[in-house]
């Protein structure tokens, strides 16, 4: 019996390399893994629930179904990555609002679904994916902005959840980190050994960025 045995892990943001690696590692460690995908999908080692995480009613329905089908969530991993690859001026109002909804609103929408259960059970782990883009990039304005918002959300959520022994941390990967390395970091942060990283944004990259 490992510490992830039978734990329910929910990963948002659809199937991406990071999510594939996390699902594989959590499943290998005995966890039950759910991935929220916008359209129907399949992923080895995981069960996919269709959900548009940028729409509150969709999120409510998906988490109610997960709880009824499997049980309460032990580990929630926010990994939304909507982007349009445009500068601020090129980005339309619609693109901006959609990226805000998927990458920022979803953090609140999804956390709200699990926070009460975690509080009552006095246990839980929440991980938020930020990105080094939050330090400013050219040509991905909305995405970078939301990855800054992700940090602010993490720090506040950490303040609110810590008295219920829930740990909340962010990961800030750079593109030079492999999906395996990112997944290993997330598993560490959601293990008991990761408790000291509560309320921190953990950088996952090789290059000598000091910001």
């Amino acid at each position, binding site marked *: 019996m490992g510490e992830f045995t039978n734990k329910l892990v929910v990963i948002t943001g659809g199937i991406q390399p990071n999510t594939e690696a996390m699902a594989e590692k959590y499943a290998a460690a005995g966890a039950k893994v759910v991935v929220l995908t916008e359209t129907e999908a399949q992923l080895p080692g995981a069960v996919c629930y269709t959900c548009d995480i940028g729409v*509150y009613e969709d999120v409510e329905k998906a988490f109610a179904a997960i709880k009824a089908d499997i049980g309460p969530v032990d580990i929630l991993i926010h990994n939304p990555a909507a982007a349009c690859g445009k*500068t*601020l*001026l090129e*980005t339309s*109002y619609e693109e*901006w*609002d959609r990226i*805000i909804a998927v990458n*920022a*609103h979803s*953090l*609140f*929408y999804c*956390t*709200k679904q699990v*926070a*009460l259960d975690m*509080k009552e059970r006095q246990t839980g782990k929440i991980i938020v994916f930020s990105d080094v*883009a*939050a*330090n*400013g*990039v*050219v*040509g*991905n*304005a*909305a995405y*970078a*902005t*939301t*990855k*800054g*918002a*992700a*940090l*602010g*959300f*993490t*720090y*506040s*959520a*950490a*303040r*609110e959840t810590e008295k219920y022994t829930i740990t909340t941390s962010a990961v800030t990967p750079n593109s030079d980190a492999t999906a395996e390395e990112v997944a290993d970091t997330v598993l560490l942060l959601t293990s008991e050994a990761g408790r000291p990283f509560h*309320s921190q944004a953990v950088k996952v990259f090789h290059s000598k960025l000091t910001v």
Partner: protein
Amino acid sequence: MGKLSGKFAVVTGAAQGIGAGVVKRFLEDGVDAVALVDLNLEAAEATAKELDPTGTRAFAFKCNVANPQDVERCFAEIIAKFGRVDILVNNAGIIRDRTIIKMPVEDWELVLKIDLSALFYCCKQVLPGMIERQYGKIVNMSSMGFMGSHGQSNYAAAKHGVVALSRVLAKEYAKYNITANAVCPAAVATDMITAVEPELLKKKMAAFPRCRPAEVAELAAVVSFLASDDSSFVNGERMIVTDGRMCL
């Protein structure tokens, strides 16, 4: 000749508090004209009249910054009147504090809209002209709240987003001689602070080295610096204005 002579400025959320303080400082620093943008037109007009009794340099404009179409209309009116915008201060903001468990979805979305998305809407109106003239200064009001507080997940997300957005602006538009910076105060002596019960306020202020909030004028001075040519090589910064309370 003040350091803002020859410049045309826009300040959002300018009817009161920090916004009104920034307008006052801009006028003292010689700005040619400043637009006081606010949802409350009457209050903005009263502030404009108080700060510029001659009615020749401060002008009030009604705008709901959460609505991109209204922002387009308002900035079109400002640009028609001034001819251009050299300085944009994105100051409008609200708070709706509740824990994540108790916070209504509407409160989360409204704070993200006004405190974050509105900056995007306003920047889009002024950037084309700034690029054309190869000159622009954007100052975005963030807050030390970006480091997160109990019951402020919406505000912290928005204000940390403002820091990131400022860095994006800095990196995307520096080549056009446009700078963008974020200002992060903690406590500022506005009506919001002075309404706090004195004993509680004293307790809260004990965490600050000089046991007091920033005066509005002290914050406005920082904004004016970032809006002037004195800050020509300061770009993408988060300017922390807390008297040493928060040193990051």
